[in-house]
């Protein structure tokens, strides 16, 4: 699935060649559209020649429709597509400054390259100016200090801003662009060619334009309806692409391996617990994060859970595996890396690291129901229990139930009677290690 994984050829000649060829296509199309001519570019700002607006916005809506369409069809993974982080204030300030530069110089960096390539002297001068301008910025960036990073909103897209689906956002953008084109055509007529605008001129008349506009609008309506893939859909294509199989139990990790990872200080191990609040309060792993299963239906919440350092290892847990697996699918579908499920859930965890009998007794009268805890907790211990943090490497497992009565009992009978099972410090569980930490692929921006 696109974007293509080019990591195998990263840094090689073929990799640079790809970017070179993209540049060739870019430069050629700009030149063909007349962007090598500063007079044509500047005429935009006197409403005489609206080529810049037409080309730019046509390019944006065509690309946006193609991107959202291929994402809707499962051909492109949007989460892997680079979206420039939004730094609102620097972006607006820089934009206003660039507007001034545009009207004075008659180019923007990309178009000046095209002009320079066709030996336009003003283009060459402009490129030189851009070079100096970037140097000026580099030298003075320190003066700006933190202001450069003000209003960092991260990856923030229009659909997220207005809380509407991606397909609908693209549709509205297309409609807006078509309206702007209509205005641009009228502006060119009036300001550019000095023609009078009568009633007849207000009606769109050029058939190819009407047909093209209808086609783009139609396509975006179709894809607004088809919608973007849900987390579950995404999970399925991600799983297929990465070869993860639930049937082969790939993401299910033995509790003892989880305990090992909790001891590894180079990795931040995170536990996401999707059980009920009651169960969570009764017992949970030390440091576990309680997340309700229903909240994972919210895309923005899932996105927030993705916002963790690259060395974060996430284990999803429920009482058995059912809820955890559903939650895991939502997280992986949302793009979370290095996520696994604790095999057997809390019930298996407690069977391997059993709490003292005074805290919890195994459910013996019947089998536990669906996603029911297999231990009855006499007290709600939360994470204040040995089983919450077996990684603590006690030399001798602490006795947790230490009432006066039990102390007396122990003195007579011996420590083992308060335990549900005899504790063996050397007990090693046999399991196969499965977790492989994936490094995040470094994606850069389009500029710099």
């Amino acid at each position: 699935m696109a974007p293509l994984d080019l990591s195998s050829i990263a840094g090689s000649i073929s990799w640079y060649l790809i970017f070179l060829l993209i540049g060739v296509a870019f430069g050629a199309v700009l030149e063909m559209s007349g962007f090598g001519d500063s007079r044509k570019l500047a005429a935009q700002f006197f409403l005489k020649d609206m080529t810049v607006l037409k080309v730019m916005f046509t390019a944006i809506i065509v690309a946006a429709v193609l991107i959202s369409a291929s994402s809707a069809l499962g051909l492109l993974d949007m989460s892997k597509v680079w979206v420039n982080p939004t730094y609102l204030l620097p972006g607006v300030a820089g934009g206003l400054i660039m507007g001034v530069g545009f009207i004075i110089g008659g180019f923007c960096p990309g178009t000046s390259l095209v002009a320079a390539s066709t030996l336009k002297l003003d283009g060459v001068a402009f490129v030189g100016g851009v070079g100096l301008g970037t140097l000026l910025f580099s030298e003075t960036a320190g003066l700006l200090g933190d202001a450069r990073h003000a209003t960092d909103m991260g990856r923030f897209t229009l659909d997220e801003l207005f809380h509407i689906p991606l397909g609908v956002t693209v549709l509205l953008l297309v409609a807006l662009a078509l309206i702007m084109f209509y205005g641009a055509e009228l502006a060119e007529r009036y300001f550019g060619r000095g023609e009078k605008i009568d009633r007849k001129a207000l009606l769109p008349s050029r058939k190819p334009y009407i047909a093209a506009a209808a086609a783009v609008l139609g396509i975006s309506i179709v894809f607004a309806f088809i919608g973007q893939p849900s987390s579950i859909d995404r999970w399925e294509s991600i799983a297929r692409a990465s070869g993860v199989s639930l049937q082969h139990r790939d993401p299910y990790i033995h509790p003892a391996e989880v305990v090992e990872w909790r001891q590894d200080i180079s990795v931040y191990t995170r536990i996401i617990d999707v059980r009920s609040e009651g169960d969570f309060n009764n017992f949970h792993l030390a440091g576990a994060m309680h997340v309700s299963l229903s909240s994972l239906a919210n895309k923005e919440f899932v996105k927030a859970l993705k916002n963790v350092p690259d060395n974060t290892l996430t284990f999803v847990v429920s009482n058995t595996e059912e809820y955890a697996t559903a939650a895991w699918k939502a997280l992986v579908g949302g793009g979370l890396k290095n996520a696994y499920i604790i095999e057997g859930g809390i019930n298996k965890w407690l069977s391997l690291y059993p709490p003292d009998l005074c805290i919890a007794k195994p459910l013996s009268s019947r089998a536990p129901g669906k996603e029911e805890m297999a231990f009855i907790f006499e007290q709600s211990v939360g994470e204040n229990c040995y089983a919450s943090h077996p990684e603590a490497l006690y030399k001798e497992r602490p006795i947790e139930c230490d009432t006066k009565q039990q102390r007396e009992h122990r003195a007579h009978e011996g420590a083992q009677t308060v335990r549900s099972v005899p504790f063996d410090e050397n007990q090693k569980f046999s399991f196969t290690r499965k977790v492989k930490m994936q490094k995040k692929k470094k994606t850069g921006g389009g500029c710099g």
Partner: protein
Amino acid sequence: MTNPREARAYINPYLGGTLLGVVLFGAFYITGNGIGASGAINRIMVAILELFAPQHVDRVGYLAQMGGGTSFSLESTGVAMLLGTLLGGFVSGMVNRRVKVELRKGPQISPAMRIGAALLGGLIMGYGARLARGCTSGQALSGGAVLSVGSFAFMFSIFIGAYALAYFFRKLWN
């Protein structure tokens, strides 16, 4: 014009825009990134600076990010793209007979003024582009295609800035 080797006409802007949109889409599809220009120009400047004052490059944070220490600033996909842009522009210019040493300027100003304005405009643009973390190709087009809020805000700012000052600089062009 009676020149038999006349330049060909420019293509229809909507067609040009569509082609550009396809190129943009292709870039995202193949590489996951869009296109850009100002970053590469910045890197070339750093490379030039490296020849004269490498210690300076190491010491100024913004420069060091691109070319400090042992890293080679020209070794970047952006620079490859810039070279391609120059090549593509040139090839199209040749095919369309538009490669010509000339100066495009408004009728009311001298060539020297035009060169000066181009230098000044470029200087302002270069500064603004680094502040905004991209230029129209990188921020506006690529960011717009993926619906980045910052890119649209940036785009409108450019248009506002230019339109607001157009009246004052009308003599440069008309």
